[in-house]
């Protein structure tokens, strides 16, 4: 399965992977981030239920310094 995460292509990911599994794969701390999938928010409580599909576009964000 192929995904686009934060504008970058990711190839050959396992079929049926959930958002939670992807975050673990990327070693991202769940508590400190938020996820948008194909322009829709994926709530933290749904990370382990949301199964990803071929070509999904994900944005994973956090807070950085700003004015």
């Amino acid at each position, binding site marked *: 399965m192929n995904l686009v995460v934060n504008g970058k292509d990711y190839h050959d990911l396992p079929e049926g992977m959930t958002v939670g599994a992807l975050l673990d794969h990327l070693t991202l701390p769940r508590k*400190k981030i*938020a996820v948008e999938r194909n322009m829709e928010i994926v709530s933290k409580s749904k990370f382990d239920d949301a199964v990803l599909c071929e070509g999904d576009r994900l944005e*994973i*964000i956090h*807070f*950085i*310094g*700003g*004015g």
Partner: protein
Amino acid sequence: MSPNNTIEKLIVAGREFDSRLIIGTGKYKTYQENADALVASGADMVTVAVRRVNLSNPDEPMLVDFIDPKKYTYLPNTAGCFTGEDAVRTLRLAREAGGWDLVKLEVLSHPKHLYPDMEETMRAAKLLIDDGFEVMVYCTDDPVFARKLEDMGCAAIMPLGAPIGSGLGIQNPLNIQFIVEQTSVPVIVDAGVGTASDAALAMELGCDGVLMNTAIAAAQDPIRMAVAMKHAVIAGREAFLAGRMERKQYAVASSPLAKEGMID
């Protein structure tokens, strides 16, 4: 009264804040310096930006590791957004990341002056309010737009004092005063403050608070400037509440000058 307080708390959208100073978290050399400046400033609210996680280095330091979102109110901004839709999308993500609905809306225009695009700002404010956000809005120092934003339901009106990052101080105190006079929600000067006297002036004009980033972050000694800003905001607020003396054209002696009281 704690040293950070003026007499009364700042209240925005029903939330109480001890300090009337809000500081940014951009442009510091390190997050640690930022955290130290925050403590020194006495502020209890910080603006933050929302950006993609760096996937090539997931272990790099994160802001939340240095500034605890449980202890300080994070005010997510929409810097970098140029349309209402971008702003709404960004703040929905911020709300999901942190659970906050108090946000700072800024829809910028040309990079040279970073003036708010007021047409898009108005549109975005409406979209956000309809989506349940409490919107603190960065705006021009135009009393007409300020009124429209307040009527729309914005939680705070935040006119610029001068262009973002310019440090030029309040360029149009008359307009800031007009806005203060007509507005029922908090008015917070956002952008343009360069040094302590600029912050004091904003408060003397009757503003409810001051938001700054570069004035502290780009000072030679940011921690010391943070202390200066804390005192400036308190001084300005107290001076405003005290009510300044009347301006007079000529001198009025402070010691009695009557001849009969003087030694020969």
